[in-house]
């Protein structure tokens, strides 16, 4: 059986499973559609949250970004897990006690203002749509590879699948499907990592293998540092990027995690306030299984790739030849990935070999002159392909490759579905039922939810054709937006009785607008290429890249809210009482619709 058929089998079988579960658990009422009837156990909920949370960015993109940068991209690891501490301590139990269905409902009630609710809906939609763009990028890479078509075709097919699948279920269908998707994605991520860790370090636990020794007795990271510096790249384990930007970026990801509506919604679905606290912990347990493995996947893949391009012990042994790439089965993965347009090489100096090195490094330029090289010949290596190509690079059996295909798609689909659900409930429940037409029937509400999903996916697909970065980078922008708008409003709503309606609205708008403008200045207006005035290589404000700006946006939000609240009318007593009651678990009943 050829690889193509194996991939189709694995992907097909996993899809059949998800769709089966979605049909079995189909949501009948609006309450089930939004919050799964609140009957979900904390461990189950944690697992579903993990699947919801770990998207194409975590599964497909992150290890690749770590692999090619090293220590500096530890920001993704700390940022995307540290947010759960904020979520567990500052938001989840209180929002569960409040007991409504959506994030904007809390903001609307706490800040006793329809405007606040609508502004929250806008913030939520902007952040979620940006997030879906990142998912579509990942889906495009995955489908492109496994159906052996171009990236664009892959993206269009993926969009169709995501749509068909997300309109089906609502939260109830999505919760149980996501448990299945978690199992698929974690198996798919870990199995190749275990194989590779065994090959390189003899340790079956990749997280330990990262700090283990290779067969020669030399630590893996020492060996990796040696080979990448020989090729003229930055040493893997040392700090090269700007420290301020690194701190702000990590902080943005953390705050953003705690501000993303589709994750927060998850904590509405547990039966009790105490369960909301445990749920956040369980979610992080399941997330950590992947996140502790990811840095090992990155480092080991970087070592494997470097050694493949220089198969005879570094530069002195000579580069891999074009003939080997064409004929040696160990290099088959290069030809298959070349088809997607995401990997490419070119024998520029016509010596029959492919030299992979950093042609921007001055010492390498001197060496290249001496050796007759005319530039790096591994001309294209999209970071997003690394995890998917990894089992092929390590020459693992065909079924592992098929499994990774299914896992990558599970990650992208589960998150896209969760986000679409958050978008659709914001539109139908908060905007239409909450503001425009409170008399809408339950049926009409469900229909408008599904229409909102369709519109969101079309917009995200269209923008995903020209993504503003690799999947994880686009997703990082979404986090910045959530960090700057939603999180501060929620936190101030719980921890401060001083912030009133005007303060909250002004804060959210200021945070969102300033962050959005900063992002658009660097990534193009509405992410349209060529309309940007700055680049992240040379940002507007010192070293602060657009992906790191969310932390600043959040500070603007807090600051503006405090100043404006100080100048306007005090919060009324009944709202202060509401805040007091949210702080105490006692009396948390079943949530009510209104």
């Amino acid at each position, binding site marked *: 059986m050829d690889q193509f058929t194996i991939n189709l089998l694995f992907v097909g079988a996993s899809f059949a499973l998800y769709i089966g579960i979605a049909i079995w658990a189909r949501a009948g009422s609006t309450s089930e559609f939004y919050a799964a009837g609140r009957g979900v156990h904390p461990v189950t909920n944690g697992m579903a949250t993990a699947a919801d949370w770990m998207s194409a960015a975590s599964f497909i993109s992150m290890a690749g970004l770590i692999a090619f940068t090293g*220590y500096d991209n*530890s920001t993704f*690891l*700390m940022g995307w*897990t*540290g947010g*759960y*501490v904020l979520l*567990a*301590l*500052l938001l989840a*139990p209180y929002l569960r006690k409040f007991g409504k269905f959506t994030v904007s409902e809390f903001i609307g009630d706490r800040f006793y203002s329809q405007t606040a609710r609508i502004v929250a809906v806008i913030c939520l939609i902007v952040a979620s749509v940006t997030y879906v763009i990142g998912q579509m990028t990942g889906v495009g890479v995955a489908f492109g590879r496994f159906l052996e078509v171009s990236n664009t075709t892959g993206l269009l097919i993926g969009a169709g699948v995501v749509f068909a699948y997300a309109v089906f279920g609502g939260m109830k269908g999505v919760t149980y499907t996501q448990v299945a998707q978690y199992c698929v994605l974690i198996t798919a991520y870990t199995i190749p990592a275990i194989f590779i860790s065994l090959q390189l370090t003899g340790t079956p636990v990749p*997280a330990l293998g*990262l*700090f*283990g*020794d290779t067969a020669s007795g*030399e*630590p*893996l*990271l*020492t*060996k990796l*540092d040696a080979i990448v510096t020989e090729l003229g790249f930055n040493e893997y*384990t040392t*700090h090269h990027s700007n*420290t301020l930007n*690194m*701190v702000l970026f*990590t*902080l943005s990801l*953390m705050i953003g995690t705690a501000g993303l509506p589709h994750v927060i919604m998850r904590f509405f679905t547990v039966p*009790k*306030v*105490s369960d909301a*606290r*445990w749920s*956040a*912990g369980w979610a*992080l*347990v399941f997330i*950590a299984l992947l*996140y*502790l493995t990811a*840095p090992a996947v990155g480092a080991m893949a970087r070592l494997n790739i470097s050694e493949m391009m220089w198969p005879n012990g570094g530069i002195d042994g000579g580069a891999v030849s074009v003939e080997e790439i064409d004929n040696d089965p160990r290099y088959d993965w290069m030809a298959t990935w070349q088809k997607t347009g995401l990997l490419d090489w070119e024998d520029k100096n016509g010596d029959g070999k492919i030299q992979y090195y950093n042609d921007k490094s001055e010492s390498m330029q001197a060496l290249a002159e001496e050796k007759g090289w005319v530039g790096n010949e591994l001309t294209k290596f999209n970071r997003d392909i690394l995890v998917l190509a990894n089992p092929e690079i390590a020459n693992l059996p065909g079924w592992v490759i098929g499994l990774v295909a299914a896992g990558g798609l599970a990650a992208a689909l589960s998150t896209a579905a969760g986000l679409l659900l958050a978008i659709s409930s914001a539109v139908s429940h908060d905007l239409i039922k909450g503001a425009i037409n409170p008399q809408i029937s339950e049926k009409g509400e469900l229909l408008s939810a599904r229409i909102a999903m369709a519109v969101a996916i079309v917009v995200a697909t269209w923008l995903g054709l020209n993504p503003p970065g690799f999947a994880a980078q686009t997703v990082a922008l979404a986090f910045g937006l959530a960090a700057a708008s939603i999180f501060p409003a929620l936190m101030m709503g719980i921890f401060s009785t001083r912030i009133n309606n005007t303060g909250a609205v002004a804060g959210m708008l200021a945070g969102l607008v300033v962050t959005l403008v900063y992002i658009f200045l660097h990534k193009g207006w509405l992410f349209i290429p060529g309309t940007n005035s700055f680049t992240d290589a040379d940002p507007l404000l010192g070293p602060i890249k657009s992906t790191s700006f969310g932390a600043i946006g959040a500070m603007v939000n807090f600051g503006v809210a405090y100043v404006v609240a100080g100048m306007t009318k005090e919060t009324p007593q009944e709202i202060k009482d509401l805040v*007091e009651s949210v*702080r*105490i*678990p*006692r*009396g*948390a009943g079943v949530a009510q619709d209104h």
Partner: protein
Amino acid sequence: MADQSTNSAQTAEADKGYWQANLRLIYISLAIWALVSFGFGILLRPLLSGISVGGTDLGFWFAQQGSILVFLVLIFNYAWRMNKLDAEYGVDEE
């Protein structure tokens, strides 16, 4: 009537104590949260460079794995302590 108002005053007092205890726990937890990630993982890494871990230093370990493990401990510790506090102050859900 008089009884009822002392009762509610007592409840309000207890609720206040509960909230203060909660805030204290949050401050301590967040201080540790920042120390292991922004501290050990990034800003204080040079100070930890003397302690070597498998081919690199302790700061690298904190940035890539250690901070995640500490986050887990923080969340479970918080959940456990808060659920105990709920019972202690009589504010838990029936």
